[in-house]
């Protein structure tokens, strides 16, 4: 499925903003992305499985607040670096 990433993650994907990933859930998708781009998962999800405070994830433009959200290969996942000031 198509995954669109924010610029803070660009160094993991050789600056590709749009990548492909696989998985039946958001958790599985992130595991797949971490295999393709080692280290990327921990930057957006903490060790307890929570999406980090300044990261938002959307599946087909609907915000996903947990990683057990089911995915279909036709879905589009958008990862956004939300507001972080100062």
């Amino acid at each position, binding site marked *: 499925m198509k995954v669109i990433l924010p610029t803070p993650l660009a160094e993991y994907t050789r600056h590709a903003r749009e990548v492909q990933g696989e998985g039946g859930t958001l958790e599985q998708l992130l595991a797949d992305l971490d295999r393709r781009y080692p*280290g990327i998962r921990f930057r957006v999800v903490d060790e307890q499985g929570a999406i980090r405070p300044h990261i938002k994830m959307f599946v087909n433009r609907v915000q996903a607040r947990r990683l057990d959200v089911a995915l279909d290969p036709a879905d589009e996942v958008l990862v956004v670096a939300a507001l*972080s000031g100062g």
Partner: protein
Amino acid sequence: MTAALEVLVGTRKGLFRLVSDEARRDWRVEGPDFLGQVVNHARVDPRDGRSAVAAVRAGHLGPTVYRSEDRGRSWKECARPPAFPPGGEGESVSHVFWLAAGAASQPGRWYAGTSPQGLFVSEDGGDRWESVRGFNEHPDRRKWIGDAQDAPPDGGTLHSINVDPHDARHLYVGCSAGGVFETRDAGATWSPLNRGCAADFLPDPDAEYGHDPHCLRVHPASGDVYQQNHCGIYRLDRAAGKWERIGRNMPADIGDIGFPLVIHPRDPRTLWVFPMDGGTVWPRTSLGGRPAAYRSRDAGATWERQDRGLPREQAWFTVKRQAMCGDTLERPGLYFGTTSGEVWASADEGESWRCIAMHLPHIYSLEAWSAA
């Protein structure tokens, strides 16, 4: 210019290198690396003078550690950053705050202190980090460090990781809040080490824990221990297992509140502090807008003001706990960085100072490395 001397500058917006030689007259600024990311601490490995580690966190992203094999010219992210085990209290590392090399007899070992207060160890030069369970899962840890209400505004931190030069299994750490703790079995068991240390913000004047050490240093040869605490400057009387408040000997109009503390690399009786205003609402700036270091050459019995070359008025420096360090040249140099992005240096043990960098971002840490 032969690059015999380098100072790594960790800032709120990236990592910089100040490069000079033994004369320490001419400096150039290199970098930034990690532009836009918080670099709380970066250090060259004193055991090989080649590898280095850096604690990095972007505003949006989770915390990680980068490693270098060419003293910071290029960096690679570690394979497994410090992280609490899943479950437990459900804690997650907010940022890596402090990095310390293991003993000379333990090449490749690094320690990391985090926010919230956690201790992690790597045996492979900082590539893969493990939780030090003896501390992080200690049954009294929550009691020691309290909760968010007990923590400083930017979150509680574990810092000041020091290895006893006589015993690699003997470690000291500082927790803000929590106090000083030590282990004598390489991290398996821990004890508070706060007797004699004030905690003016606690009702019990003899509290066993809950203190706020700002910076604890152990002399690399003698093993003497000093700390700059939220409530004064102390030297550890090892035989008595008790802290002695040597800050009582500071001038009364200056007091003994500050963040950093530096020990002379070869003389354990010589140390420096950088006092700040801890009155009323705790401005944490130089007292009266007149910054100065204070040096003791007799283990804190007497102190002398060192402000030659520093601004004489309207200079409201804040120097954080990791933002003052020394080099190891024959006549040691001293360095401090301010939250307003200036680095000041002394090539004569603090007797005179000059600004060697300005306009940098908010400075969190300085670490000097010299080939000598």
